[in-house]
Structure formats: C-alpha cells, structure tokens
C-alpha cells in the first residue's frame, strides 16, 4: 500500500481531497501528495470508507487539479523523531526543519497524538514557581505541571508578559531553569522575531525548541503543530527528566483553523460556528501538561488565547477556561492607563495555587492574604463604581479608604517593570502595606495572628 501511488482525485476543495475506490486505507493515516508541479504536500485521512477516502491537506488544496495529483498512503500516523538535539532548533508543524539545518535523525519516533495519560499515573502538581510577577505569584500562583493560559486581546502585551515569565520563572531554592518548547500558530513575523530575539538576548536559545507556523503559512498545519510540539515536550520531560515550559500561541488561531476544516467537512456547527468537539479537541492538547509518578520532569503550559472582541464568553476562551487550571486575564482598560502588566484581577484564577503556597512553600499567611486582597479589591471596585455616580465626597470614610486602596493596589502591587523580578516575599510585603490602608475589622479573611504580625494600621495615616 505504501508503495502504491493513486491518481485522479474525485474532488478537491476547501482543504479536503476526496478519492474513490481506494479500499483499506487507515483512519488517521499520513498521506504524501505530489501536485502537478512536483511539489510535495502532506495530508491526513479523516474519513475512510470502502467507497470514499477523505484527506485533509495541511498545505491546503489551492492550485490542485484532479487529474495530475498523485497520492500515496504511508500506512503510518504522523510521527516525530526524538532526540536531545531538538533543543536549539526550529521546526514547522510536522517537525521538519525550518532553520536550514538537517532533519533530526533518531530511531525513537512517536505518534504526535500521544496516548491519554492514565489519571492514576498523574502526580498532583504542587511546587510553587516564582515568576517574579506580583499579580501571578501573589494572587494566581503558577505551579510546576500546571496549565495556565493568558487570555488576551489584540494589541495587549501578552507577548511581553510571556517573555517575562519565560525569563524569570524558577523554583524557589533550585538552580535549574526550564527548557522551553515554543509552539506558534498563526504568529505574525514581527512577533516571532520578538520572541527569537528575546531568547537570544537572554542566552537561552539553545534551550528552546521552536515549532513555527506563521500568519501566512497554511492554516491547516496549525491543527497538528501543537501535537507535534507536545510530543517533543513529553520526550524532554518524561524521557530526559527536564522541566519544560510550553508556550502555545495563539490558540485562537488554532481553533479558527479547526472551524475552517469542520465547516468544509459539513460538521454540525454549535456556538459561533465552532464544531461541538472543540472542547474535546482542545482538551487533548491542554491535558498533555502535568506531572507523572516516578518521572522527574514536568510540563508546565502557558497558552495564549486572544479573546475575539475582548469577549471572555467567546467559545475559545470559554472552553479553554473549562479545561485549564485557571487563567490570567488581561484588561484593555488597565492597558490604556499604561499599566503593565495589565492583569484583570477579578476574573483571573489559579486553581492549583492552593496546594503550592503557604507555610512550607512561600509564607504561612499567603493563602489568606491572597483571599483578602481579592475580597478587598472586589469591594473597592464596587466603591469606585459608586463614586463615579455619586461622587467621592458623598462616600463614607471607610469607602474613601477603599478607593485609595484600589488605586494603590494597581499602582504598587500590579504595576511593575517588564524586567522587574520580585521575590514572592517582596510581593507579600507589598500586599500587607496595602492591607494596612484598611482597618483590621474589615479584614475578616486574614487571621487575628496575621493582623497582629503584619497589619500596620495607624487609624488612617
């Protein structure tokens, strides 16, 4: 079967190629296609019946004709060759070099789809990662093996934030840094260059494996790219015992490519035209983050998801939020005030924070301080809203303190430089300076011991 080449496709449209009378083709099989100019394309079987085989062509079906297209079924799934040499290299979505260097040669090859991890084999992630960013470390801590996306929007500084996380992330009391698997789907040329230069300037390029599909590369390739990249990440983490940070940017372009193919196939559309399986499809990707018993390495994942029209209820951020272990949401409003990083605190969340902070991990008061800051800031935002209606002067004294708290929280806690690397203790100390703007009676989320120890209330300075 592998050797046989088929000609005369029955139809070719919107990225799909249809062949008739090719029996026994495997579902998911990798396909090699030669067009009439002798150029090679890659495909994958997405439906196989006795009568009809449907092939999804990663490079699209533009410029294909029916009579002069030659198709070979390779009788194998998409696989990635694995070796330590992956680091420091740049590949396309199916793992072919993009950096004019030779392909990776290895006998170890794995199916890029992976196999689902047995939940029993997982180890619960609980090791605190210090990113040096207060909005994350203090309020939405990241732990090793977590999947924590950044919900952003066009023009917001998610790239700068991701680069800062990559640069600064480390485990407290450990020297070893992360190796990075960088997976770009639909990235602009300028953004790709930004990351490359940032890695280069920090001397980490040799510790990064890049899988790149740019904005003008074929969109269907984006469907396989994160799977290829994660196959590399799993190898680095679980075969080579490395701690891997996976950046996936931008999952919105991934999902759009999925919708394009789904529409072409005639799948039943659900919200905003996305197919019903978008959730499961994205889960196959996101759930590959984590830790596994008896393996030393880990996969921590930071996907970027841009919210179309800044709408967090759009299916892509929405379903992502339903799968990942929290989210860091960026705010256009804060960004317009030139506040960096413009993290929108109320909707941001880290679900794994609870097991990674506190007494033995960061500081004993951390869980309660985080909860108190959230509660106080939520109250302060309500007051700010009210003040905009009835005026600041009409507010009771306590409410005016809350207003002050909100401003200071944003200016001193949230705001920091793109190169400013704060220790988590510094972050917690700033938190207490802010809580000291409010009287102890309203701080019911912290304990009385905390108040005695850290609260520096002078009755309104």
């Amino acid at each position, binding site marked *: 079967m592998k050797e046989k080449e088929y000609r005369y496709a029955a139809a070719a449209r919107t990225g799909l190629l249809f062949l008739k009378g090719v*029996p*026994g083709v*495997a*579902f*998911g099989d990798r396909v090699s296609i030669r067009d009439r100019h002798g150029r090679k394309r890659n495909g994958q079987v*997405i*439906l*196989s*019946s*006795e009568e009809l085989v449907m092939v999804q062509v990663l490079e699209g079906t533009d410029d294909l004709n029916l009579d002069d297209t030659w198709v070979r079924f390779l009788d194998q*799934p998409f696989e990635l060759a694995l070796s330590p040499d992956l680091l420091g290299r740049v590949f396309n979505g199916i793992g072919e070099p993009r950096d004019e260097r030779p392909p990776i040669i290895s006998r170890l090859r794995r*199916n890029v*789809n992976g*196999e*689902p*991890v*047995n*939940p*029993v*084999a*997982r180890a*619960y992630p609980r090791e605190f990662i210090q990113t040096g960013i207060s909005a994350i470390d203090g309020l939405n801590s990241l732990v090793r093996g977590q999947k924590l996306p950044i919900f952003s929007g066009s023009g917001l500084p998610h790239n700068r934030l991701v680069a800062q996380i990559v640069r600064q992330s480390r485990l407290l009391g450990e020297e070893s840094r992360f190796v990075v698997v960088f997976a770009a789907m639909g990235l602009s040329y300028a953004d790709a260059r930004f990351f490359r230069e940032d890695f280069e300037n920090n001397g980490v390029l040799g510790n990064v494996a890049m899988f790149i599909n740019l904005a003008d590369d074929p969109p269907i390739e984006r469907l396989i790219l994160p799977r290829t990249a994660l196959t590399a990440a799993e190898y680095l983490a679980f075969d080579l015992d490395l701690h891997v940070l996976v950046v996936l940017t931008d999952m919105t372009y991934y999902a759009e490519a999925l919708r394009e193919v789904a529409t072409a196939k005639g799948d*039943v*559309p*659900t*919200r905003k035209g996305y*197919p*019903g*399986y978008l*959730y*499961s499809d994205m*889960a*196959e990707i996101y*759930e*590959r983050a*984590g830790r*596994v*018993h008896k*393996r030393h390495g880990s996969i921590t994942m930071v996907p970027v998801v841009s919210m179309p029209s800044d709408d967090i*209820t759009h*299916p892509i951020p*929405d379903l992502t*939020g339903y*799968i990942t272990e*929290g989210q860091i949401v960026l705010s256009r409003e804060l960004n317009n005030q030139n506040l960096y990083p413009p993290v929108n605190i*109320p909707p941001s*969340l880290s*679900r794994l924070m609870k097991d990674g902070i506190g007494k033995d991990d960061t500081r004993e008061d951390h869980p309660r301080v985080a*909860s108190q800051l*959230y*509660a106080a800031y*939520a109250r302060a935002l309500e007051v700010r809203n*009210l003040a905009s*209606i*009835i005026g600041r002067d*009409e*507010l*009771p004294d306590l409410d005016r303190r809350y207003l002050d708290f909100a401003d200071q929280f944003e200016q001193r806690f949230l705001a920091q430089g793109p190169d400013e690397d704060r220790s988590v203790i510094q972050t917690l100390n700033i938190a207490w300076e802010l809580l000291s703007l409010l009287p102890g009676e309203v701080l*019911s*989320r912290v304990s009385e011991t905390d108040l005695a120890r850290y609260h520096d209330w002078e009755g309104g300075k």
Partner: protein
Amino acid sequence: MKSGRIIEVNGPLVQARLPGIANGEQLRVGELGLTGEVIGLDGERALIQVYESTEMLRPGEEVVPLGHPLSAELGPGLLGGIFDGVQRPLRAIMESAGEHIPRGLALPALDRKKHWDFIPEASLRAGQEIRGGMVLGRVQETEAVEHRILVPPGIKGELMELAGAGRYTLEQTIARVRTPLKGIQGLSLLQRWPVRQPRPYARRDDGIAPLLTGQRILDTFFPLLKGGKGAIPGPFGAGKTMLQQQIARWTNADIVIYVGCGERGNELVDILESFPELTDPYSGRSLMERTLLVANTSNMPVVAREASIYLGVTLAEYYRDQGHDVVMLADSTSRWAEALREVAGRLGQMPVEEGYPAYLASRLAAFYERAGRVDTLGGDSGSVTLIGAVSPPGGDFSEPVTNHTKDIIQTFWALSKSLADARHYPSVSWTESFSDAVEAAARWWSREISPAWQARRAQALDLLARAEELSRIINLVGVEALSPAQRWSVEAASLVREALLQQSALDEVDSYCSPQKQFALLDLAMSLYQRGGELIDNQVPVSALLQLPALARLRRAKNSYGNEQLDALARLKEDMQDQLDKLARDYREGRS
C-alpha cells in the same frame, strides 16, 4: 452471532456489515480489539460507537459481536477503586501497561484472584423459595461498608445449596438455585447488570431526610433530600468541582460515587491522593473506604464519556439495593451531553438546539429518574441521590443542558461568577438557587435540631433579598439616602454573607459545619438582626451597633469555634445579648 467487516471509519463512529445484530450489543472492533457498541442499524449496516481511539483502523478489518450489552460488573472490590467510563480498572491498567492507557486492553473490572470472607444469611435454608433482591449473605468489603450479596434481580426458585462461611473468590459458586425456566443456576459473589437499564425495586418512596453536606448554603438554605436530584450549574472556575468534592467528603451518605466525566485528570488525582488520608466524620474511617471513582477525563475518548454516567448510576443502584444511601456526583453532565451531541452529529441526526439532538431532554430526564428513595426487592430501604454539575457555555443558563436540567431536578445550586470573582465561596447564589425540599427538610431540622429552623431560615433569606433591593438604591444615590433601619438591614445582610454563607473548603475548622453549628450560627445572626432592629427603633445609631465586640466575634465565629464548641457559641449569644441590653440601657439613660 457471526463476525462482520468494517465498511467505514469516521472518528469514533464505525460502520460494519453485520446482518441480524441488535442495538446495544457490545463488539470487539478491528485487529486491536477495541471495544464498541451498536447504536444504530441501517439495513445490513451496524453503526458502532467505539470507546477507544480509532486511529489507524481501516475498512476490511473484522468486528466480533460479544453477545451482550454494555454491563457493569458488580461485587465486592468496587469501593476504593477507580474505573474508566466502561469500567476498565485504571490501577490494574497502570500496573500492566504503564502511565498511558493503551488501546484494546481488556481487563476485568474486579480482581478475580482475591478472596473475600463470606458469611451466609443465617435464616436461609435449602429448599426455601428465594427471589431477586434477597440477601444471600454478607462480605465486609471495607471496614466501613458491609456488602450484601443479593440474589440477582429476575431470579426466582428453590435454594438448593448455600455455601458456609468461608473465603471465596468472585467466581466461586456460593449458592445454587433451581429455577423453573433455566434449570439449576449457580450464583457467585459477582454479577452483571446492563448499565442503560435501571435496576428494579419494590416501591418508590418520598424523601424524608436531608442529605447533609456540612455546607451551610446547601444544608440550611437550599436543602436536598436523600434520594433527590440536584444540579450545580456555573461558569468555569465558579466552584462546581470543589463543591462536589466537598459533598463527597462530608455527606452523611453511606457510599459516594464520583464520576469525572470529561473533566481534568488532576482533579481525580486530588481525590485519590487526599481521600485515603481524610476521615469520614460519621464512621471515623478513611473516606476512600466508602468512595468509588469513575474517571473519563477530557483527554480520554469521547464516547466512553457517554457510558460513564450510566456506569456510575448502575453502581449506585447496586449499593442502594443492599440498603445503603448512595450519592452519585457527576462532573460534568454537560460533557456527557456533548458526547451525545458528537455521536448524533456523526450519525447525521437532525440537530435542534445548539447542535443537540431532539432527545437530549428525554435522556437527561431518564438519567435523573434513576434517583430516588426506594423499598428494595429484599425489603430494605435505600436511596440514590444524583447531583450533576452543569457547565453552560459562556455561563449562560438559558442554554439547552442547563435549561432542561432545571426542569427535572428538585434542588438547583446556581453558582455565580461575580461571587466567585470576589472569592466568595461557595459561590452559590441565594437569589438564583432554589430547593423544592424545604418542607420535608424542615420536618427533620425541627425534630433533630430546632423547631425554629424554618422561621430562622426564612428570615435570613428575606433579609438577603431586602438588602439586594437596598443595594440598588445605594448604587443610585449612595448609602446616606437610607433610613437607619435600612442601613442596619444592609449591614446585617453583609454579616450573614460573611458569617454564614461564605465557607471556605480550604479552612480546616470551617470546611465541615455540623447541623447543630449551622443552626447556632444562623440563630446568632438572626437574633442579632432582630434585637438590633429594636434598638434602632429606639434611636440607637447603627454605628454603635457596628462597634459591638460581639459582632466582630460573630464575623469570625465560623472558624474560631469547631463543631464540638457549641457551648462557646451559646456563650457568644449570651454575651451578645448582654452587650445589646447594655447598649439599649446606655442610650435610654443618656437620653433621659
């Protein structure tokens, strides 16, 4: 039944030529021996859903019918276990195959080699007539749970022999019975039941006792009965999973079945790692001894997700039939509905709303219908309580799954994004939630805890609703526009929110709140509100009330005093009364 050949592979949906096959029948599919189920017939073509990835499966490969529908294995050894959606034992799979789940690996759900101590039912004699549901004997499955070995439903005849006390494996014969239709049949500790078919019972009863969860907003404000059906809808991150895990930890049921349906792997690990270390507040034993997990995480094949819900409820009914109170938690029923939608779509069935097939509502109703308190065939009483999380897209409760679920269930715990954003947990909204079980629960609370329960509860909800109204006014014109009595309502409501409704799962003291403590806190808050209101009518300013030391203590009472410190709460009530009386005196005297 003869084997057939695959004609088409379309993701998890396979077609094969299999004339004469029946809907629902199980199959081995392809060279790898994947497991599948017939879900439709079209002439000679069988439409098959496959529970495992069909990658590299091809037309022409063989399909072998197994002659039975998807069935659960029932017997000792289920508790403490973790199974996938079609009951493959995940621990045994890890031992034999490592950290990934390979395809085509068929392992029996229950350990065939393990011996169990069986004690026959003393009253049974050879020659006696026995029928389905009767207790043949007992096995102490875990220290906490006695497993009753029942005559399988449908069997009726003369008991010829019952084994003596001793150690038996699951497949050894422990009894023989002569039935009129099928002759002599051997019974063992192991039986099977088709998961899509509800297990029979003698009679259905109304619920009479609340399912206690130790969560104030649930038990005190929106109770659910043992044998009831409840739903927890909420947007992502609102706390559905945490709330279900809290229920799994603290509920007063005998058995807990937790179904992770299309959700995160780490959440199951969380349970697996923490439950063995936690103690059941009722039996004093490790929580894992009464817990059973069904796990079909979001990265596992979609179709098995659909089956996982039915597997879970069948296991629940099996323990119910032994006379236990069982709770099944499903996280999330939306992922189950999506699996249904996925298969319907591939079958080309007409979508009616948001891509869901027309039968979504009836399937949901049929599933929840399997909840209930019943008289068992064996003359015992048992219950299955079903609690499903719902994950509405965009947090929009008008979407089909939330909407239909709302019509079916009795208790609706609606989670609110704005509460979660302010880290007010559990983020159960007191305006959108409801419970049809308050009357029945009130009888229990009144009898066991206090006759004042129902009145106090109503007062608190009333206060919360009033404060909600008032906050709208504040947002228009500021707090200064309110009368002192109105301001006191706003303050008291905020106290109720903090001191009662908010309850952190992560707080060691407050994670579980006994019904006695729940009522004590409720009573404290409400008597403060009432008496405070009287003072305000007598010109005592709100600010003076807010400065009472007892009020600050009440704010922190939930985590300052444990469940056993009811006397401290009683003292707090006395202190509060004293302080209020003193305040009233001071103002009377000051004025005169």
